[in-house]
């Protein structure tokens, strides 16, 4: 983990003044409070379970100010995992259009990033970045919760 990752891990925000000066108020508030919305495509459920693992006591993403929300209208981050097939594509587009607009899209797992073993299937409708713009990729089959956290921290300290 690099130096900026340490800032986000700090529970009591000792360095918040530094961050605040660098980012400006709006950007700072946005990065400190991300609401996650989980879109599962035609997934084998492994990535779903690893995403849920990040919310459990062991990994606890709430210490970065993140929480899982049920409605896409509240979301700041769209977590997309699983291979996107022809039935999923219009739904993913609709979800993306329904989200309020500074929205970060994170493709999780081999299927989300490239298509994985489904890339040559006849119902496959392209990896996520061919459908909607993607800000971060977290590869792995499935990625470990540590990898997901490291990806999110890299995205935040971008």
């Amino acid at each position, binding site marked *: 983990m690099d130096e900026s990752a340490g800032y986000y891990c700090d529970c009591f925000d000792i360095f*918040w003044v530094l961050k605040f000066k660098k980012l400006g108020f709006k950007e700072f508030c946005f990065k400190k409070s991300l609401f996650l919305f989980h879109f599962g495509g035609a997934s084998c459920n492994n990535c779903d379970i690893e995403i849920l693992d990040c919310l459990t006591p062991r990994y606890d993403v709430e*210490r970065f100010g993140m929480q899982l929300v049920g409605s896409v209208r509240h979301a700041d981050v769209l977590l997309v995992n699983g291979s996107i097939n022809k039935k999923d594509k219009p739904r993913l587009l609709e979800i993306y259009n329904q989200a309020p607009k500074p929205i970060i899209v994170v493709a999780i797992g081999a299927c989300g990033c490239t298509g994985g073993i489904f890339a040559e299937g006849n119902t496959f409708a392209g990896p996520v970045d061919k459908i909607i713009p993607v800000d971060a990729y977290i590869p792995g089959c499935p990625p470990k919760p540590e990898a997901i956290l490291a990806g999110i921290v890299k995205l935040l300290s971008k």
Partner: protein
Amino acid sequence: MLKDLFYYLIYPGFLFVAVAGGLLSFFDRKITAWVQFRKGPPLLQPFYDFFKLLLVKETIIPAKGSRITFLLAPVFSLFGATVSSVLIFLPLLGIKTGFTGDVIVIFYLLTIPSLTYIIGALASGNPFASVGASREMKLVVSYELSFLLVLIALIIKSDMSISLYDIINAQQPANAFIGSISGVILFIVAIFCLQAKLGLVPFDMAEAETEITHGSFIEYSGSAYALIKLTKYIMLFTLPAFIIALFMRGINLEGIGILWAILKVLAVVLILTLIRNTNPRVRISQAMRFFFVWMNLLAIIAIVLIFFGY
């Protein structure tokens, strides 16, 4: 006039209550995290959430909804919560004595947030929101009677005085109301009514994330949702303060009294948080039976006990 504006906007009113409510919301989330052996969010997390929603995010108006009603509902909920907090905190902090009958006015003002949630949800045109609104309506119908019975019992207990200042003062020479048998029973009923009013977990079926995905608030985004969040923070401070005024002889802001005041508020919020973390969500029929039968029964037993002098 200027003084009234100061009361409304700054000290016992909007600014004070919003900041204190945000800190209490942090306390609630931190205790929840500790109960679940997690680390929990940073201190200013509720304020980050609020400013992010207010300043950064886009506000989307649903195509099939009623535009003006949808956007005005959060404004009115914030207005109702702020006015009720001013009327509660002026007698509680000893700034003004209030007027005769202000308990009844406070009772009505405290229902405004729930009503505006219902109106805003129905204006959004979303089927999940209308399910949430119908559940919220049933919940309001069930807990308001119990809450009114608690207030009636306390009015009888304090020799028929219907101003909040007199109810606080009726407890000063003798013990607080919570020190008697009827007081303890009424306190239990009031805590469950608070839980339902705040929409916390055993009674959060109106915004159940897992089944109807935030129910009443499903279509709110951006600054409209920020106002709803702010209303929730304000209610999380106002309602425990109301309970403290009614049961624990208010607060005293001289010397060590400040510490006791903070501890009283934290204790009431701690009870609410622990109930929230140790109970599953109930169905709406179970909640209605709980309030109509058991809570009303307890409140009536307490009123009978008050007549016998306990």
